[in-house]
């Protein structure tokens, strides 16, 4: 009997937590289709009574959303490709038992996880020494090597049989060749996992654009949310032609619409990519 009661309680807690996680997504999604006048008078609702596509139409009739989308996509693709390449190669060296200094390198990498690099030095480096302000590279370069993802790869490479490499070495192949021709192909599942972690990080980032992008036209999607939440001159920002003075500005609807446009791709692919993330976390939790 107690066992039974406990099971019911368990399912109830899990169900409640799942619902609790889901509701904010639902509110944002469904209200982005709500009629603007309804949003302004009745506020956000669990199920709006009047729908309209006005917010999306308005948003998509401007130029900014396409510019921002372009920047986000470019940063995500370029950042992920470069990041994975740098990280996978670096991690391979860290995991290789022939390398004498791998422990020192691991430790120096681990240290950067424990201590922040310091905002000021980081800011001066990017803005004043590398002169990357208002450059798309300021959004890419600082995230190329994430120690946590490097260690996921290290712990994976360690599980590979060392003979793979010995056989190739006997055949006279050098380590770069071995890495790209043998190690990389058999690591593809884990490399896919790490790529997705990088892609998510780049897609969701706004810290770098907050620090280094002053030209508001160049802001990625994430920052467009911020702009629409705070900007008074939305019309000019979104880039809608200024002749439509008579339309009601869908201020609330547009904030929700931009959120949906931003998280849309993630939520859409989420069911397919979820297991890669789970795998990554599982590998990462193996201490090594």
């Amino acid at each position, binding site marked *: 009997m107690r066992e039974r009661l406990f099971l019911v309680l368990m399912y109830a807690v899990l169900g409640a937590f799942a619902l609790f996680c889901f509701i904010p997504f639902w509110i944002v999604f469904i209200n982005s289709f709500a009629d603007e006048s309804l949003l302004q008078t009745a506020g956000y609702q669990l199920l709006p009574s009047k729908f309209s596509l006005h917010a999306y139409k308005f948003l998509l009739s401007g130029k900014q959303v396409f510019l921002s989308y372009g920047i986000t996509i470019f940063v995500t693709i370029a950042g992920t490709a470069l990041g994975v390449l740098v990280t996978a190669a670096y991690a391979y060296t860290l995991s290789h038992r022939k390398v004498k*200094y791998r422990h020192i390198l691991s430790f120096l990498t681990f240290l950067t996880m424990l201590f922040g690099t310091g905002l000021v030095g980081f800011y001066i480096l990017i803005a004043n020494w590398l002169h990357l302000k208002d450059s798309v590279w300021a959004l890419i370069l600082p995230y190329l090597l994430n120690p946590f993802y490097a260690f996921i790869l290290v712990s994976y490479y360690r599980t590979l049989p060392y003979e793979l490499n010995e056989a190739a070495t006997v055949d006279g192949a050098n380590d770069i060749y071995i890495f790209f021709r043998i190690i990389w192909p058999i690591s593809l599942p884990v490399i896919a996992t790490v790529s997705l972690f990088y892609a998510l990080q780049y897609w969701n980032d706004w810290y770098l654009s907050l620090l280094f992008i002053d030209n508001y036209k160049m802001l990625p999607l994430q920052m467009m949310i911020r702009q629409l939440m705070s900007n008074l001159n939305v019309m000019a920002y979104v880039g809608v032609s200024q002749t439509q003075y008579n339309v009601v500005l869908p201020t609330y609807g547009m904030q929700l619409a931009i959120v949906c446009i931003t998280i849309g791709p993630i939520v859409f692919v989420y069911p397919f990519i979820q297991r890669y993330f789970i795998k990554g976390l599982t590998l990462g939790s193996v201490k090594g």
Partner: protein
Amino acid sequence: MERQRRFDLPFVRELSRNRYLYLLALPGIAFLIIFAYIPMLGHLLAFQNYRLSDGIWGSEWVGFKNFEFFFNGKDWLRVTVNTVFLNALFLVSGLGSAVVLAIFLNEVRNRLFKRITQSLVFLPYFISWLVVSMMASTLFSTSEGLINRALTFLGHEGVDWYLTPSVWPYILTVISAWKIAGYNSIILLAVIAGISSEYYESARIEGASRMQQMLYITLPLMRPTVMILTLLGIGRIFYGDFGMIYAIIGDNGVLFPTTDVIDTYAYRSLRQLGNFSMSSAVIVYQSCMGLVTILIFNAIARKVDADSRLF
């Protein structure tokens, strides 16, 4: 002869023997030097009266003046207390709910229910804090927010949430658990999956109920991982979650008394006041506190349970 010896240095020999491997690591090493270690030079600014035109080597050195200024003001105590208090709340709520989620999810036999629940609780990990901030405003905004609408509907008066500092530590705690519990629970589920089934079998033979198995097998065996996650959290207890706080609170000064953390304070000193040296002093202070904390707790962990230490 001399030349021969220099070439025999073990360091050089190692580099040349594994030159291809070091070449593979080169971009990564360059990255760490440029983006992780060179910025540490920024800490020097804390001891200067830094001016952009003079640069880091030309600015005037002022010793501990910036620190004196920081510690003489009343902000340092506020941001320190807020940082530690909020992080402690986040750590406990995030891990606590994850432990419950993981144990319960592990017990669920209905596959569909398990998959859907797991997917939903993991979902918030995938969105940025700015999106979370927008979601929070749909709930807490004074006139349009769902919570105030519900309160009015029930005959209560709405609350000006964004003007009430005292509630925010708890709202932020709930939001933090909302975002991270699913992520943590997956790490813990992986640990549970690694527990040998023999333990459970012998427990069943002895007649242990599922609840007992949970309490006396699953929970204790999760302990090392929970300890490591706790230690990692404590090690970062002086590092505020800038992304979260700045996205949700932003520049809303009314809420600073309870939500301003070291990181947002340093950010404002740098970007809004343009005071590089002050910002740097705050960060040096933060790093020192962080270093001391991690050394202390690692030493304790090493004593108590050698498996749980970080290094």
